[in-house]
């Protein structure tokens, strides 16, 4: 609760809203105690007094009634009715929505058909029909407004409930012997409640407006009793001659609704966990660069990553996802980058072309050089021209990485047209040729497919074709086969291997699977907690791993043909990269660690192509 309030008031607008709303609320609540005139006492002699006249701070209306007194009493009524309508609509609507969403099937179908029917009315028609049937009056206006809003809540809450009801913890509760009522009350409701509160806080203002609107039309509160809407409605006829009688209640409605909306947005932001972590920020076109220290000098490699530091700045915390990685590839070479999740291998790859989501990502040091040119310091337009043209990417899940609403042919053509002036037909011919290159059967028909019409393997072939579109020098493949079935994976790997041999491509292949690197890569680099711990020719590293982490990680992976057995495991968990231990980051999990390992920085050292970051390596290299 204190966390919630803290978050709420860190949002300055929400705080302003809260202050304004509290002032209104307090003055309305103490209105009966204030020395105000009777709001309904008429004095036709004093009609249409201007504001700030003696005895009438805000002036009087067409019957000479004191506007201040009427305003406070009217606000009290409007607030009460609006909030009551919101509570009623939220309660009924949420109950209906939860029941429909949880049980699904026929019950859901029946309820939602009814809701759809109510939503098929423009809302005021339904409200007008209800008021027409029940007769004008504030209570009836309340019923109409609440009834009209029930379907909105029902539909909203049902959507959330359906999502939750499909989650595995609901299944788990069922297996733990809970009944339907108990699951709804103890498993679902606590998770749906924030959504209900958000929906309510963002609609209360709206419902106050709606009830005021009905009163404005003369269908709500009846004279002499007045709420804000009917005050405005009565003042309308004197709008031109005595505008203050309209402006006073109008401004009040505006202030109430505005402060509630501000507060509501604040509540929503404070309750939405995604906003808390800053995840709702949109990534910029390129990663922010804030390099400290000297930029390493140019090399002759095709692509060189030099002492790269990439961090994530979340609130006050700094996650050092990549902490000084140096790598290089030559033409025609395949480099495997191996590590567990969180080791920084994908972030390293995305940093090359400035594709790390930013915020929160920041490149804090080092360089990436393509044929000697520093890409980290490059301007956006320069980087854009290189992306996909000289250095191309293949991503993991081909369903989410292809645009769902464009035909695959269009997406391929676009990749070419982003770098070459080609006509539509030329681009299409080229796209067709690319589909043939990646061995898609029946390419003339497939070119007009949408991604969802293809299987996972076919989609990944499209991803590869897109990467090949401009005949790049380097392809960075980020776990391209992890989401695929094993038989499909074998085909995609074979395809990639053929392509690179035919075209002399350099590939940086990122994976967690030693089997895959062993089959595809010439060299490998093993990453742990943002650093390279070992690198060298594939065979040499796999046959005789020098770093204890590499050795034990290889031992963890069961291999086909070993029979039923106990597996080697590494105790403990990988460290969180916002709080790395000094010295060797693997030391806490390493059975060979000695005091020296925990003291200072350990360098990546070795002879020839091999190197290891360990004081007491398993093998002398």
């Amino acid at each position: 609760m204190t966390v919630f309030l803290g978050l709420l008031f860190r949002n300055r607008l929400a705080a302003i809203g809260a202050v304004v709303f509290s002032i209104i609320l307090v003055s309305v609540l103490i209105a009966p105690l204030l020395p105000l005139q009777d709001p309904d006492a008429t004095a036709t002699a004093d009609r249409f007094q201007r504001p700030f006249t003696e005895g009438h701070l805000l002036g009087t209306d067409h019957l000479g009634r004191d506007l201040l007194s009427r305003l406070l009493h009217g606000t009290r009524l409007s607030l009460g009715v609006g909030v009551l309508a919101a509570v009623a609509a939220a309660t009924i609507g949420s109950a209906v929505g939860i029941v429909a969403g949880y049980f699904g099937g026929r019950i859901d179908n029946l309820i939602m058909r009814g809701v759809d029917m109510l939503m098929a009315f423009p809302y005021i028609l339904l409200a007008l029909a209800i008021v027409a049937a029940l007769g004008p009056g504030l209570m009836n206006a309340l019923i109409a407004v609440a009834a009209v809003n029930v379907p909105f809540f029902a539909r909203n809450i049902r959507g959330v409930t359906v999502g939750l009801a499909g989650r595995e913890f609901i299944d788990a509760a069922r297996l733990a012997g809970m009944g339907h009522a108990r699951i709804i009350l103890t498993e679902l409701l606590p998770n749906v409640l924030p959504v209900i509160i958000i929906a309510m806080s963002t609609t209360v203002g709206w419902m106050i407006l709606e009830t005021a609107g009905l009163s404005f039309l003369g269908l709500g509160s009846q004279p002499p009793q007045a709420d804000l809407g009917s005050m405005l409605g009565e003042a309308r006829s004197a709008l031109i001659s005595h505008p203050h009688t309209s402006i006073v209640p109008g401004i009040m409605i505006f202030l109430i609704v505005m402060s509630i909306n501000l507060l509501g947005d604040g509540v929503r932001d404070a309750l939405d966990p995604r906003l808390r972590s800053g995840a709702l920020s949109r990534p910029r076109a390129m990663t922010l660069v804030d390099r400290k220290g000297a930029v390493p000098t140019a090399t002759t490699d095709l692509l060189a990553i030099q002492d790269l530091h990439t961090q994530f700045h979340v609130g006050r915390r700094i996650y050092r996802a990549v902490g000084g990685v140096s790598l290089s590839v030559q033409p025609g070479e395949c480099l495997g980058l191996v590590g567990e999740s969180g080791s920084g291998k994908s972030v390293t790859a995305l940093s090359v072309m400035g594709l790390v989501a930013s915020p929160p990502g920041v490149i804090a040091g080092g360089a990436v050089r393509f044929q000697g040119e520093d890409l980290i310091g490059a301007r956006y337009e320069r980087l854009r021209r290189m992306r996909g043209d000289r250095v191309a990417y293949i991503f993991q899940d081909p369903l989410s990485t292809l645009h769902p609403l464009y035909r695959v042919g269009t997406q391929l053509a676009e990749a070419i047209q982003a770098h070459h002036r080609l006509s539509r037909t030329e681009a299409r011919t080229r796209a067709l040729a690319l589909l043939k290159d990646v061995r898609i059967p029946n390419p003339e028909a497939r070119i007009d497919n949408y991604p969802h019409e293809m299987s996972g393997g076919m989609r990944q072939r499209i991803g590869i074709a897109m990467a090949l579109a401009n005949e790049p020098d380097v392809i960075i493949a980020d776990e391209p086969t992890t989401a695929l079935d094993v038989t499909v994976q074998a085909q995609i790997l074979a395809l990639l291997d053929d392509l690179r041999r035919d075209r002399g491509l350099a590939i940086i292949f990122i994976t967690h699977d030693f089997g895959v690197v062993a089959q595809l890569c010439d060299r490998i680099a093993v990453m742990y907690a943002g650093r390279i711990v070992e690198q060298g020719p594939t065979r040499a590293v796999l046959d005789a791993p020098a770093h204890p982490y590499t050795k034990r990680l290889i031992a963890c992976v069961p291999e086909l043909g070993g029979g039923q057995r106990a597996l080697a495991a590494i105790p403990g968990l990988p460290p969180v990269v916002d709080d790395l231990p000094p010295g060797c980051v693997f030391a806490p999990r390493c059975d060979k660690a000695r005091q020296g390992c925990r003291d200072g920085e350990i360098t990546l050292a070795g002879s020839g192509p091999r190197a290891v970051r360990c004081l007491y390596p398993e093998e002398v290299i």
Partner: protein
Amino acid sequence: MSGYILKRLVSAIPVLLGISIIVFLIMSLIPGDPATAILGSYATPENVEKLNRDLGLDQPLVMRYFIWLGNILTGDFGRSYSLNRPVIDEVLERFNATLVLAGTAFVLCSILGILAGVASAARQYGLTDKVITFVVLIGISVPSFFLGMMMILTFAVNLRWLPVSGMYAIYGGGDLPDLLNHLIMPALALAAVATGVIARLSRSAMLEVLRQDFIRTARAKGVSETRVIMGHALRAAMVSIIPVLGIQAGFVLSGAVYIEIVFQWPGVGRMLVDAILTRDLLLVQGGVVFVAACYVLFNIAVDVAQSLLDPRIRT
């Protein structure tokens, strides 16, 4: 495609029936005897009974519904006693005026709202974003009827730029420029709230889409940022914006009731409010059913637009 449209049209039939049942049930809740209401309290019992028979009111509820349904299907919505003319004639005439007002406002709010949302998302946390967010907040907090009144006060009474109210000038009006001149203020006042809602939604839809993997793919291909935002991102965001446009059309139609009162626009909303206050129930019933049916058809058009955009729902 035509198969999808046909399917949607067929699926609208139960919704339309549902609407007619809901309206019929609400109206049959009304206490008292409609015949007495129509004939006034001085009617003779014989006359009341005759009218009841003529209107079919002596039949059971279910029968009455089917009689009523048969009548409205043949275009017979009954006769308005306060205006002494067929309900359908009055509704059609008034609906035209509402369509001009609400249609203009809807086009305005869609275009302005989406543009504002996209600009806001593309410059998240920048000055543009802050200004738009603030204006939008005011837009959704101010009651449209109050906004309309303040516009009259400022632009018609004080500045004398635009006419105070009505659809055409009383003397010498009636042409298109005259209509547009009268349309500016009510259309803007009506569009304000919906523009705000659409802008907010477009902003959050764009932000959501911009974080998706396929945007990263587009950037990795070297596609220019303008095309990433206005092409890839906006297209995907439209999938969640279009349904909201459909809902907002209902809100614009609803808001038109207030605006028609404030600007004395001769639309169906003002007619309904007057009919309720004079208890001309057949007019209320006819107006509600007619407008709701039009809205259902409009929403089918929205669904079709959605299916044109998103191949995944085209079945």
